[in-house]
Structures are given as C-alpha cells and as structure tokens.
C-alpha cells in the first residue's frame, strides 16, 4: 500500500539560510507520527511544504498520493492543518469559529459532529465565549476541532502542545490517540522530547536535518553507550567535577539526576570512589535507561 505521506529529498532555503536539507520520510496511513525537534529545526517549514502552502527548492512530496505542488488544490480538500501559533479568530466565539470553518469546507457542524464530539463537549460550556478569552488548553482543543470538522484524511498538527500546561497536554495526547483509532493519519510536531514516546514512530530533527527515524523504543534502544544516573548533595559541583574527568563522554542534567555517559563500561564502584575522593556526600548512582533526550544529545554531538 502507498504511504499516506511520502517525502523525497525535500530541501528548502530562504536566501542563504538553509531551513531543510535532504528530508526523506514515509508515514503510513493511520499512523501517529511525531516530528521531534527544537525551535528552528525546520518542523514548521516541513509542515508548510506538506500542507502545500510553501514550495520546496528541492525534492518532492506527496500526501495521499497527491503532489504537494502540482495538486495543491486537491490536497487542501483532504487535509486538516493546525498551525503552531494559535490561528483562529480571537474576536469570534467558539461556536462562530467552528461554524465558519465548517462552512468554508462546505460542511456543517451537525454533519461531522461525531468526529469532534468528545473534544467539543468539553468546549460546549464556553461556546459563546470569544476564542481570545479561552485558556491555552481550551484554545488548542478548539483549534483541533476546527482542523477536524471537515473529516480530513491527514491531520498536520504543528506544535499543538507548546505553551500548554501539563494537564491539557496529557488530555490532548489522549484525544490524538482516539483520532488515530479512526484511521486518520496524524503528523504532529513537538519540542517536548518526553512526548515522543506517545507517538508510534518519530523523526528527530535538528538544524534542518533528520537525525533519526524509528519507533521511540527502537530509538532509545539504539543508545548503546554506558549511561548512569548520578546525584549527590551538591548537584552543581558534581556536574563540574564529572566534566573534568577523562572517563566521562557527556554529563547532562536530567531532572534530579545527572546523566553520565562514560567512554567505556566501568564498575559503578569506581565512579563512586572518584566522587568520594572529591568530597561528595549522599552519593546515589545507578545505571540509567536512555531517554529520547539522551539520544538527541548524542546525535547532536556526533553530527
């Protein structure tokens, strides 16, 4: 079967600035695919190319078999797009926004209510409130409703959870999971590495290049270097002390612990002894399971 989204050697430059270079990706129908990377990585540029808004300088891409440049009119009928910035009419109410977007796609809220029911029910108490007066989480829900109302085959969500609190973020991912069950292909971007595990497959993107594409577990499993979680009473001194050693390849703060990647596998006691010799107390050291961020940091360092 043909992939839902196919990207062949896409490149984009703005003047001298390279935004994307040689991007190759395939996303299967009904897949929840995550594009994970920081601001300026090229996520939005890729979304704008795939939604037919932007012409690439190099390569080609297809969405549901439609060419993003040649068939742009057809693409625009079958996709839903939620831009990174909240892009609804702030001075229109929740209901007015939704009605408007339903109408311009030639449908009505009633016709496709089943698609948005679960999400819209949470918005219903505020349906006469102006969109600009909604909380961040509510805005995202409304934007998702507006992107869904015409029953798109492919949904492009550009950083839907940026600036939204953890509760709303968790709810948002729940909604995406349920949408996936309806067979809608979803491409979602996020700068939050911890959201990667919620996708079926992810692409790590940085500086306009794709660093790695795979299932999240496969990506974390690919991290073969010895990794330890360490903490002591003095976190900042620990960081500096470990950086000074020969055995540490990378030391990075990870929440309460530091993640220490050593050049070679070494006994834990050896590290503890070193820390004791530097006068650290309350030492806790254990092997750590790599996270997407460990992989990302590693890939950033090697590329």
């Amino acid at each position, binding site marked *: 079967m043909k992939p839902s989204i196919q990207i062949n050697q896409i490149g984009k430059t703005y003047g001298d600035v390279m935004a994307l270079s040689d991007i190759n990706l395939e996303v299967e129908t009904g897949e929840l695919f995550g594009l994970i990377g920081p601001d300026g990585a090229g996520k939005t540029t890729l979304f704008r190319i795939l939604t037919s808004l932007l012409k690439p300088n190099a390569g080609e891409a297809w969405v549901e078999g439609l060419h993003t440049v040649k068939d742009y009119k057809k693409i625009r009928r079958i996709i839903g797009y939620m831009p990174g*910035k909240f892009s609804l009419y702030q001075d229109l109410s929740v209901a007015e926004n939704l009605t408007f977007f339903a109408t311009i796609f030639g449908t009505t809220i009633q016709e496709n209510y089943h698609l948005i029911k679960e999400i819209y029910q949470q918005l219903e108490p505020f349906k006469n409130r102006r969109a600009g007066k909604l909380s961040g989480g509510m805005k995202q829900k409304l934007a998702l409703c507006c992107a869904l109302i015409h029953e798109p085959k492919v949904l492009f969500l550009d950083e839907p959870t940026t600036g939204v609190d953890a509760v709303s973020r968790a709810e948002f991912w729940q909604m995406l999971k349920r949408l996936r069950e309806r067979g809608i292909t979803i491409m979602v971007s996020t700068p939050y590495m911890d959201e990667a595990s919620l996708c079926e497959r992810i692409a790590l993107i940085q500086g306009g290049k794709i660093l790695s594409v795979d299932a999240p577990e496969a990506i974390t499993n690919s991290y073969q270097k010895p990794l330890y979680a360490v903490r002591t009473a003095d976190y900042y001194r620990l960081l500096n002390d470990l950086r000074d050693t020969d055995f540490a390849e990378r030391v990075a703060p990870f929440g309460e612990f530091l993640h220490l990647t050593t050049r070679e596998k070494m006994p834990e006691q050896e590290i503890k002894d070193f820390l004791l010799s530097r006068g650290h107390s309350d030492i806790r050291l254990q092997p750590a399971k790599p996270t997407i961020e460990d992989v990302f940091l590693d890939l950033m360092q090697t590329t």
Partner: protein
Amino acid sequence: MLKTFIAFVKKEMYHILRDVRTLLILFGMPIALVLIFGYTVTNEFKGASVGIVDQAQDDLSRQLITKLTASGHFELVRKPHNIEALEADFRAGDVKLGIIIPPDFEKYFLGGEGSTIQLISDATEPNYAVTLTNYASQMIRDFQQEQFPTEQMPYAVAIENRMFYNPELVGAYNFIPGVVALILMLISAMMTSLTIAREKESGTMDLLLVSPLNPVLIILGKVTPYVVLSFINALVVFAMGWLIFDVPVRGSLALLLALCLLYLMVALALGILISTRSDSQQTAMMMSMFVLLMPTMLLSGFIFPIASMPAILQFISKIIPAKYFILIEKAIMLKGAGWEAIAIPAGVLLLMMFVLLAAARKNFKVVYD
C-alpha cells in the same frame, strides 16, 4: 458557494462590529473629517478688516466702497488719508487688505479710459491674502459690469469666469468632493489592506488558504462589507454636505453614485495590492499612509491646486485616482454635467481599476515561495 460567501461576509461583519477602533474609523472619521474641514480648513471668510484710501472721494468711489462692505465679507475698519498711513495700519495688523482708489476715479472710469485700483494684501498669510485679493477683484469687476450693464465689456475673462466662480465663496464646494474622495480611499483601501494583513498576522490566512476556498472568494468575502460600508459613508458625507453646508448635487445622483462605486473599486484594488505586499498590520498601515493618504490629500487637488504645483508633482498627480474622482464629482455636483463631460476621467479610473486588480490578483500568493 453562495453559502460560503455569506458565511464569510458574516464573519467579517463580526470583526467590524466587535472592534471599537474599526467602528470609530468607519463611522466616526467621515463625520469628523467633514466637520473639521467644514468649519476650520475652508477658505471662507467673513468680516475681513479692510483699509481703503479713497483718493477720489467721488460718487462712484463711494458706491464701490458700499458694494465692497455690504457683502459682509469685508469690514471697513480704517480710512487712512494716504498710502503711508495705510502701511502703518498694516504693520499694526489692523488691516488685512488695503484698497487704493486713485484720484479722479469717476472721471476716468466713465470716460472709458479705465482706471487702476490698487489692492494690497498682507502676504504673511499667503493663502488668506490670495483669497482676499481674488474676492475683492471679482467684486470690483462685478461693480464695473453693474455700471455698464448694456455695453460690451472689455473684461471677457471675468464673464467667462463666472461659470466656475463660487459667488458666495463657500469652501464646502471644494472640500466635500475632496472629503468623499479621501474617505472612500481611506476606508476601502486602508481598511481592506489592514483586514487582509490582520489575517496574515494572526496566521488565519494560512488556514483559509489550506481550505478548498478559491482565493478570489476569500478576497471578495473580505472586501464586500467594506464596499457596502464605504458606500454608506459616501452617502452620509454627501448628505452632510447638502444639509449642513448647502453643497448641491446639480447633476444626476445615480451617475454620481455609479462613479463612486467605480472609484471604490479602484481603492479596493489598491488596498488588496498593498496587503499582498505587507505581512503585518503595521506595514499595511505605513504603506497605506504613504501610498494612499498623503497623495490623496496633497496631490489630488483637494487641498492644493494642481495648477500651482511644480511640473514633477503635476506629473505625479496624474496617477492619483482621487484627482480624477474629484474632477468627476465637481463636474456632476457643481456643474450638473452629464455622462459625456466626465467620460475621460471615468475612463482613466476604469483603466486604473483593471490594471490594479490584475496586479493584485497576480501578487496574491496562494503558494509561498
């Protein structure tokens, strides 16, 4: 298709009705402009202080003085005996216009040899000075004609002038057409460019583009409410001109409104063109100011007569749509001219409209580079 269009117009009306700023510009500005121009910027004057040196002191000179002062526009405040005394009055600021009637005025005048009346004005206020001297010389010419009603006058020019002459010197005759031209340009062009730029700024333009909507429909949906509102505004200004300032519409009202619509389309096309070139409301605003407001105010003949501009500015004024529209308005409203008389300026506007619409369509991006 129609349903989409109606939904669009409805949405646009919500934007307009919910934004106090837009409402103020739409409805407050036209009224404010008419009143400001009507009561402050007109060149109408009353009771200007005049000093007259009557060296003749004969019947005819006295008749002339009576005529000049009876109009109410001039008030005789000084009757100095000689020119030196008049100069002193000028310096003191007591007198804005000096009139010197030569000795033996009646004798020469009736003898048909002609006589020279000197007008002296205070050029520190040049516009005012020109207005005063123009008006006074016209009155003197009138006086002359009254004296020789049957005879062939040597002042053919003065008689010909009368057609264009504004006997009551009402500034409103000049400014109402100008204000209509300005308001239609500002509201349709500036508001259109602002409202489209706002969609770009907020990112909603991308959402509209990523929909099956035809871009022409997007633009039409956005501008239609402004066309209607601008048209209403034009009617309000014409009505205010008629009711408050007695500016008539001597020609066909239907023709006038039809040409208003044409001018509106030119303005809209300009507005859309500006919006294709600006990504934010701020840029759209600056460009509107520079491309629309200033030229319409300054180069259209609204405030400064085109004939007295340097050649380069006269040349530029030829591409200012408001110039042609003001010509049309004055012809229809003041002269009562018909279709034939305005065919040329109307043709120019029509051509401008097509060129601008084509340029706007070409520049409107459906896919970004």
